[in-house]
């Protein structure tokens, strides 16, 4: 059995440092290379996913733009900053405003649940909900997005005075959601996240009819991509 260079004299410290430095350098170059080359695809994937989610939670929408709250009003921005709170405005083919897609996040049973819900301010209704990220228990908590019945509960849901999760089969009022048997915490978390997000934005959304108009994207692409 050969043992490579194990039996030679002990190498000097300089040699050890040099070996590690070279290894680190090559590794660094390789990592930056792969990061740079995959970044465009990863960003495009994320944008496409978000776009699909916005269209999913706001029926009848075919255009969208990102909106942020600045100087006491909502403004359309093509590239929202990293730590700015964003909602997405959904517009139909004739660029008439339909509703907001509101991203929200909060603690679930295992980890943060991130979701997007569609909100129509004229009717004060939640019209759709999609879970973007969650690590809820497979088979139980993951029903918050796998159970079509539960997701459908958010199809026309009143936010007045607030959304309440009730025991399965007992929901009758327009603001009541049937919770999931065996996954009460996850279902409650979804409801709580929507309520909290709604409360956080309630004072910042303009009165119905006053929503920012759709800004046509420039020739370079831009809005909502």
């Amino acid at each position, binding site marked *: 059995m050969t043992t490579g*260079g194990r039996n030679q004299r002990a190498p000097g410290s300089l040699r050890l440092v040099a*070996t*590690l430095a070279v290894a*680190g350098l090559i*590794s660094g170059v*390789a990592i930056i290379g792969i990061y740079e080359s995959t970044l465009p695809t*990863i960003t495009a994937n994320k944008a496409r996913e978000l776009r699909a989610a916005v269209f999913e939670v706001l029926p009848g929408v075919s255009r969208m733009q990102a909106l942020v709250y600045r100087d006491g009003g909502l403004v359309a921005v093509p590239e929202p900053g990293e730590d700015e709170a964003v909602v997405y405005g959904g517009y139909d083919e004739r660029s008439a405003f339909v509703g907001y897609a509101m991203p929200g996040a909060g603690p679930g049973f295992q980890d943060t649940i991130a979701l997007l819900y569609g909100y129509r301010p004229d009717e004060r209704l939640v019209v759709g909900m999609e879970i973007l990220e969650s690590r809820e228990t*497979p*088979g139980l908590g993951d029903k918050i997005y796998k159970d079509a019945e539960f997701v459908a509960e958010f199809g026309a849901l009143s936010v007045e005075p607030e959304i309440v999760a009730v025991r399965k089969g007992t929901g009758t009022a327009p603001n009541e959601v049937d919770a999931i048997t065996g996954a009460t915490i996850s279902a409650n978390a979804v409801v709580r996240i929507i309520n909290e997000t709604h409360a956080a934005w309630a004072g910042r959304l303009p009165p119905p009819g006053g929503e920012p108009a759709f800004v046509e994207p420039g020739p370079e692409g831009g809005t909502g991509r």
Partner: protein
Amino acid sequence: MKKNASYEEFVKGIWRDNPVFAQVLGMCPMLAVTNSAVNAIAMGMATMFVLVGSSFLVSTFRRVIPKQVRISCFIIVIATFVTIADYTLLALVPRVHKELGAFIPLIVANCLILGRQEAFASRYPTKLAVMDALGMACGFLVALFSLGAVREILGDGALFGIRLFGESFEPWVIMILPPGGFLTLGLILLFFNWFTQKKNDFLADVAGSEGRGG
């Protein structure tokens, strides 16, 4: 003889020295991401990429790397390959990447990989090291897949997302949950050891009767 050597290095990892069933290495991803067959295969492929790449480099440069800093060098090599696998999966199959989550970066800490560098790749020529890595990775893939398939079939009534049973099938949710991983792995290890013991008994038997006969 020369040809047989590399073939032997490849084959040993799949069954006799299977990293999971015989060496019981790499338990963390083994139990964590095998709740569906697709996840298991994605994890197996990512591990294979990292293991083969690292073994190739470590074996090629085994005479250049001083023994005092070998572990650090191995880790740098492994971590680089893991990062490449991480970004590649994120770009190509974001859905799978989302499911595997933290366990892709954790391949760095898979003792199977560092173990092969220390025990094999740093001592043997490149060709043998690559064959050994391929064999071990295939063995790991087989083990992950067998666990993932069993758990998905019983826990979800499906394989690769295709429903196998009718509507009346009640999924054993526990099989997808962590305890299901332990149960299934325990049973598979039991079977593997039982089989190995039977085989050894049989070989001893044959040898014994031949001894008496001759």
